[in-house]
């Protein structure tokens, strides 16, 4: 059985693990915060979306590098 695909795919997968953990943690804390103070739900949600987008940006750096390495 031969291994198909590229090492770049492994790199991209590792980057996504980081993003998943980070955004999961943010989501968890946001849920807790909303549970404690339902009236602050709007602000917490906004802050959560911003933090998630920034973490995703960092993770996508890894994806871009994986795409660049796809050639060989």
């Amino acid at each position, binding site marked *: 059985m031969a291994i198909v695909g590229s090492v770049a795919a492994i790199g991209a997968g590792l980057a996504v693990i980081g993003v998943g953990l980070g955004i999961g943690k943010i989501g968890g804390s946001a849920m807790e915060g909303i549970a404690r103070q339902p009236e602050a739900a709007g602000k917490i949600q906004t802050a959560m979306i*911003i933090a998630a987008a*920034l973490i995703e*940006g960092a993770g996508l750096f890894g*994806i*871009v590098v994986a795409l660049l390495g796809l*050639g060989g």
Partner: protein
Amino acid sequence: MLKKIAFLSIVFILSFNASKASAPEAHEVEKSEKYDPVPEIMHHISDAHEIHFWGKGENSVSIPLPIILWTNNGIVSFISSEFHHDEEGHHVVEKNGQKFINSHGKIYYANETADSHGSFVSHGEDGHTTNAKPIDFSITKSVVGIFLTMIILLLVFTSVARSYKKNGGIPKKLTGFMEPLVVFVRDDIAKENIGEAKYKRFVPFLLSIFFFILVLNILGLTPLGFNVTGNIAVTFVLAFISLIVTLASANKNYWKHIFWPPVPLALKPLMIPIEIVGIFTKPFALMVRLFANITAGHIVILSLISLIFVAQAGSGDATAWAVSPGAFALTLFIFVLEVLVAFLQAYIFTLLTALFVGMSVEEQH
């Protein structure tokens, strides 16, 4: 409701099982017999010299776009239909005494003679084309996308401005739709991050950035096949403009914080290079964030649709039809996510630009 979900999930799972059942020797099939979706996907997210609708090769139905090249002998321009849909480097166009060839969407100077395959380009060791290139100023698909966005924004916002004048500040239909967005950018993005005293100067710039990126992102999701913000050159220019605005409006306090940060003396040799590099990494992150988010979204959508073609190449037409509902359902889900991402990325770009501008005009505290 529950019954509907159960029914759909059963259909979905069955469609996957159908493909497995009719491909017992799938793992022994040569790579060349399977459908490789990667070149098609890459072709769809790249820029092109024509707006291609359907068809392949000679039978393509497309709108040709002008090609404008700055060559060694001056500016040469012609319409891309002169290449007769050839992207393999076979058809030579001669203008102004110079020969041009189209290889994979890029324009090169053609070699004098064709090689054994009839191609006028030479390739290096790793498959890259080694011909020289004229400087390409063509109106490509992305440029048409930008012009289209410009027209849309001009039409919408001049009508909104006129409507305010005519109705004395009371918003009607389109204005009523735009007003919350504009007020949102002005209050929650500009005023919040730049401060009450100085935010007014930057509101037009922030509004332009927000709506430009938003409309371009949404345009990329339409079937017209534009991919403008997924082009790193476009996001580079946007981030560069952001950097220029930040640096041009920086006050003495900002430069003092960069070149003589308020940290203990022992740390200063470490902090000063970090701060200087930091001036450039922030717009760089803006550029890569927008580019990667939009391109990744487009690639995921295209890959999910390619599942149907992979199934067809691997197991025949019947499997392809069976896989289609599942593929469409997944694609629809990702599409909805991508609309959210379109808004979110425009918001994040504008927010971070406002943040950086705010940091550069901040007074001593």
